[in-house]
């Protein structure tokens, strides 16, 4: 494994440990939420990282259509898969939080619902990609779908400004609406989750590129 990757892995491990410490020991109970505030840090960071990963799919789609280099398509697909993983974590942690706070796992809150639609939308992109056997067409059309699917991410993000919601709006134009310790913990959780996501995207990209090479060798031999 290259030295840079090892260093990045080490730093990520250290930041992740700090994330665990700050979430479970450093952050004090919230005035309103009490101990439940700890779920908040496992919920917000994956949600924002999922949006970022889908943004990565959009950017890679544009880059592929512009440059025509297959590596952008593989990277975009990797970003999509990791986005789906983090959306799943967001939905599950959100359900745990909803159950603890409101006594039900699912209450059709606009953010909850649009996040589930987002999950379904990007799962559809994956299924769509799998339905095309021609490699070039898959990359070309998959990139287009990744681009035109992005407005759903924006709608999910702004849903709490459009509809009545149970979701607290913590990130506003004037900054973070929370205690300083919670703000610091959220920042560390964001950094840790972003680093974990980058490692996972890199790992997925590495595997998918290797699979692509094997596939090409097989095609050349047959």
């Amino acid at each position: 494994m290259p030295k840079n990757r090892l260093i990045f892995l080490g730093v990520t491990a250290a930041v992740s440990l700090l994330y665990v410490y700050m979430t479970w020991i450093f952050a004090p109970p919230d005035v309103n939420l009490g101990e439940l505030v700890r779920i908040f840090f496992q919920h917000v960071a994956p949600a924002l990282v999922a949006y970022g990963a889908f943004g990565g799919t959009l950017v890679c789609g544009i880059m592929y259509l512009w440059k025509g280099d297959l590596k952008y398509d593989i990277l975009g697909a990797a970003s999509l898969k990791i986005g789906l993983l983090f959306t799943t974590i967001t939905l599950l942690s959100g359900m745990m939080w909803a159950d603890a706070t409101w006594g039900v796992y699912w209450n059709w809150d606009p953010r909850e619902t649009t996040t589930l639609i987002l999950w379904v939308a990007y799962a559809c992109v994956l299924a769509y990609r799998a339905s095309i056997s021609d490699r070039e067409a898959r990359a070309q059309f998959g990139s287009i779908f990744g681009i035109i699917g992005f407005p759903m991410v924006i709608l999910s993000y702004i849903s709490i400004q459009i509809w009545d919601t149970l979701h607290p709006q913590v990130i506003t134009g004037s900054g973070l609406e929370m205690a300083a310790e919670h703000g610091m913990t959220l920042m560390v959780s964001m950094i840790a989750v972003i680093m974990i996501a980058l490692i996972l995207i890199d790992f997925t990209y590495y595997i998918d590129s290797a699979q692509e090479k094997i596939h090409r060798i097989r095609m050349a031999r047959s």
Partner: protein
Amino acid sequence: MNHGFQAAFAIAKKDIVTQMRKKFEAFSMFLFALIAVLAFSFAIVTQGSIPEEIGSAMLWVIIFFMGMFGFAPIFLSESETGTLPGLATAPIPAWSVYLGKVIYGFTLMGIVEIFLVPIVSVLFGFSILNDIPLALATLIIGTLDLAAVGSMASALTMPSESKATVFPLVYFPTATSGLMLLIEITKIIVIGPGLISVLLIFEILIAHLVAMLTLSASVFHFALSS
């Protein structure tokens, strides 16, 4: 630019004339919508009536599903008749082909909606006449938004081996964002102003339409060249 718009209108005209000769497609869409109304009625009618906000939301759900019949064959029919390569190699910009298909999809859906909307509002017991200009604008922008998404979804099914199965996979997720806004606006028109400003949602709907049209038009030549 003018040449592109002329080409778009020519393509739309060609599709509309072909559709008028066949007739069955628009009629099938209308019948499907009526069947959907009856099927939904079993689930939502309580004590002989339907809450206004649910009835009005159902209108867009029915139009959304009806779009499957209207939009799916837009490029499929070109592929089946062998005219798709002609469109791809024609000396016109690719976006005009896309725009032509959007205009065609909008016209087809619009024709069916002229009959469908009054029938659904009578059967489901709601009125969109509280704010006629907004209701008309919502119907026009909403149908245009669905046509913009549906036409692109139809083009995206072309390289797939299972086109019929893949169309909903592309159409549903991309159209759902617009559908949610349309349902919300129509609800506000029917039950009166709520806490949320209807104009804000309407602006977001227009932004959604503009985003869909520009994104799709700018990448359409990649789809057509394949």
